[in-house]
């Protein structure tokens, strides 16, 4: 392979893995409303508990339990979709006696990720004090090793297939006469990748459906009928069909191309069919994942598609070069001299497209620049960028040192110089491979994390970080001193939120205080309550607004009588 080819290969390989999209970065189903309302006392037993989400959720994968303070199950049936609203789940309950009840739920989002939550309500007229419920775990990750491995295999197969097809029919085509064996090898490699994809997609379907249904993946007879019950499952069935169509169209396009000279009309028609099918195939992951669920779906889907197409041309092309190297035989020099410069041009264009679409997608997913270092999602991106820089250093070394040495050795027929160049190259490439392995690991970590909630972008400057546990924090905002108390500051349980406002040592009375709750770990609807004044200058309310474990943005909007309003914002961590 030529020097330039090597450098481009190193760079492209490293960048590819850095920027391989996170095809399943998650938009979670957010709970919008419940009936009975969270922490409210209702008079008399409700016939059912209803939960309304911001998207349709599949009742077959939903788990909703309603338990009494004594831990007894009160749900009398399985959750079902409300006949009047597909976003609402209904769960029938037994006749509830006065007291407090815990509702614990788990649903699967449209993009295939599990979300859990809990809230309490009371049946009156005299429910008594709210007990401290034991809440099951509220965290569940879709990124188990099995799921990640299956997804990785699926993506790698279809991306390699697209890239190998372009290598076979566009890049290496002029060398077909010189090395028919290498062309055949490329076609076979393409076929292997298509078959691998057609096997990997159903495996991923099974693994992911098993995790939705909380069953073993070996329970195939139980899982298969459920595959089309989830949005992700339906999209994967479509992906399997479209991949098959791409394989068919591409195989025909390869078979009827004479290989040399101008393409016939029939060959061009077949090429168009294959390109359409390949392009369509790479839209499906975006539709099945987070891209289709973001607010600007069109833009997000476009970024995802460009990312996947350019990444596929790149990685498949690199794999194609390896195939050419292995099978070009005696005329290897000629084959590589033609193919590598052609691939280099494509690779450079692909790198630029991958970087541009990756940056675009990051801008869409990160609400503020600060979330790049303040959230786990952003930190994972930074780790990948750091690893990329290391890989670029090695790529640069290859470009600046190794390549000229190899060229000089070839020109002067200097065996010693050639050997030292080859040694350096081997070391650098080994290093790059290790770094790329690290980048892949970082990509897997990133794909297991939710992107920062949009609320982080709109929250404003945070005055203090508080929690977990009881909070007693004093913050200063302009001429005001504000004491914030949260007790007991636990998720899914009523907490008392109170602020005492003073100005110049005197209580600020008669103000209007509105408290807003923003979930910062995932997108969820904002809640707002008015606090009522008790002792002069102290405003409070008891509410179970912290419905989830995690980080909350608590904004206290204060409008003192006759003075300018101000807002105090704290980031609170609530535990179960």
């Amino acid at each position, binding site marked *: 392979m030529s020097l330039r080819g090597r450098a481009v290969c190193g760079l492209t390989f490293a960048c590819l893995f850095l920027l391989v999209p996170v095809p399943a970065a998650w938009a979670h189903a957010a709970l919008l409303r419940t009936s009975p309302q969270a922490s409210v006392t209702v008079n008399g037993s409700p016939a059912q508990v209803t939960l309304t989400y911001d998207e349709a959720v599949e009742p077959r994968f939903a788990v909703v339990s309603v338990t009494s303070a004594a831990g007894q199950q009160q749900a009398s049936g399985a959750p079902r979709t409300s006949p009047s609203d597909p976003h609402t789940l209904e769960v029938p309950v037994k006749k509830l006696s006065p007291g407090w009840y815990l509702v614990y739920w788990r649903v699967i989002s*449209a993009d295939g990720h599990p979300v859990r939550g809990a809230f309490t309500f009371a049946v009156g007229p005299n429910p008594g004090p709210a007990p401290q419920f034991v809440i099951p775990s509220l965290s569940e990750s879709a990124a188990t090793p099995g799921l990640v491995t299956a997804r990785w295999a699926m993506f790698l197969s279809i991306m390699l297939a697209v890239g190998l097809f372009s290598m076979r029919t566009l890049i290496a085509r002029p060398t077909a006469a010189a090395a028919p064996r290498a062309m055949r090898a490329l076609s076979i490699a393409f076929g292997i990748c298509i078959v691998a994809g057609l096997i990997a997609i159903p495996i991923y379907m099974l693994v992911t459906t098993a995790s939705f249904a909380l069953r073993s993946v070996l329970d195939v007879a139980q899982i298969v009928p459920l595959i089309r019950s989830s*949005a992700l499952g*339906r*999209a994967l069935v*479509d992906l399997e*069909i*479209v991949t098959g*169509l*791409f394989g*068919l*169209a*591409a195989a*025909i*396009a390869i*078979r*009827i191309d004479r290989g040399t000279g101008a393409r*016939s*009309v*029939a*060959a061009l*028609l*077949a090429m*168009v*069919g*294959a*390109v*359409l*099918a390949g*392009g*369509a*195939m790479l*839209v*499906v992951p975006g*539709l*099945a994942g987070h891209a*289709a669920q973001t607010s600007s*779906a069109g833009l997000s*889907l476009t970024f995802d598609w460009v990312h996947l197409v350019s990444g596929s041309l790149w990685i498949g092309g690199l794999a194609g070069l390896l195939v050419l190297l292995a099978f070009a035989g005696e005329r290897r020099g000629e084959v590589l001299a033609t193919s590598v410069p052609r691939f280099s041009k494509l690779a450079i264009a692909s790198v630029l497209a991958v970087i541009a679409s990756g940056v675009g997608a990051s801008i869409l997913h990160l609400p503020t620049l600060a979330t790049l270092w303040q959230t786990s999602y952003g930190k994972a991106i930074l780790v990948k960028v750091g690893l990329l820089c290391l890989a670029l250093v090695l790529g640069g070394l290859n470009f600046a040192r190794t390549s000229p040495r190899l060229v000089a050795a070839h020109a002067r027929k200097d065996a010693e110089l050639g050997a030292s160049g080859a040694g350096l190259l081997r070391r650098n490439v080994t290093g790059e491979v290790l770094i790329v392995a690290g980048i892949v690991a970082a990509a897997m970590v990133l794909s297991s994390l939710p992107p920062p909630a949009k609320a982080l972008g709109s929250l404003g400057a945070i005055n203090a970080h508080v929690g977990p546990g009881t909070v007693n924090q004093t913050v200063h905002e302009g001429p005001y001193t504000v004491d914030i108390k949260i007790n007991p500051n636990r998720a899914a349980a009523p907490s008392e939120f109170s602020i005492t406002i003073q100005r110049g040592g005197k209580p600020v009375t008669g103000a209007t205080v509105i408290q807003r709750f923003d979930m910062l770990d995932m997108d969820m609807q904002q809640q707002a309550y008015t606090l009522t004044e008790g002792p002069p200058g102290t405003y409070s309310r008891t509410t179970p607004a912290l419905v989830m474990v995690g980080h909350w943005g608590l904004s206290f909007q204060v409008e003192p009588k006759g003075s300018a309003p101000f807002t105090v914002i704290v980031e609170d961590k609530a535990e179960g």
Partner: protein
Amino acid sequence: MNSQTGVLLASLLALGAGVAAVVIVLLLGQAVV
């Protein structure tokens, strides 16, 4: 059927597969977006 007709039919089959793939993806897009 001579080989030219076969080639033409095969190319139409490939084109049809491409169009079918696009239609499937459009329908999927309509369902999820």
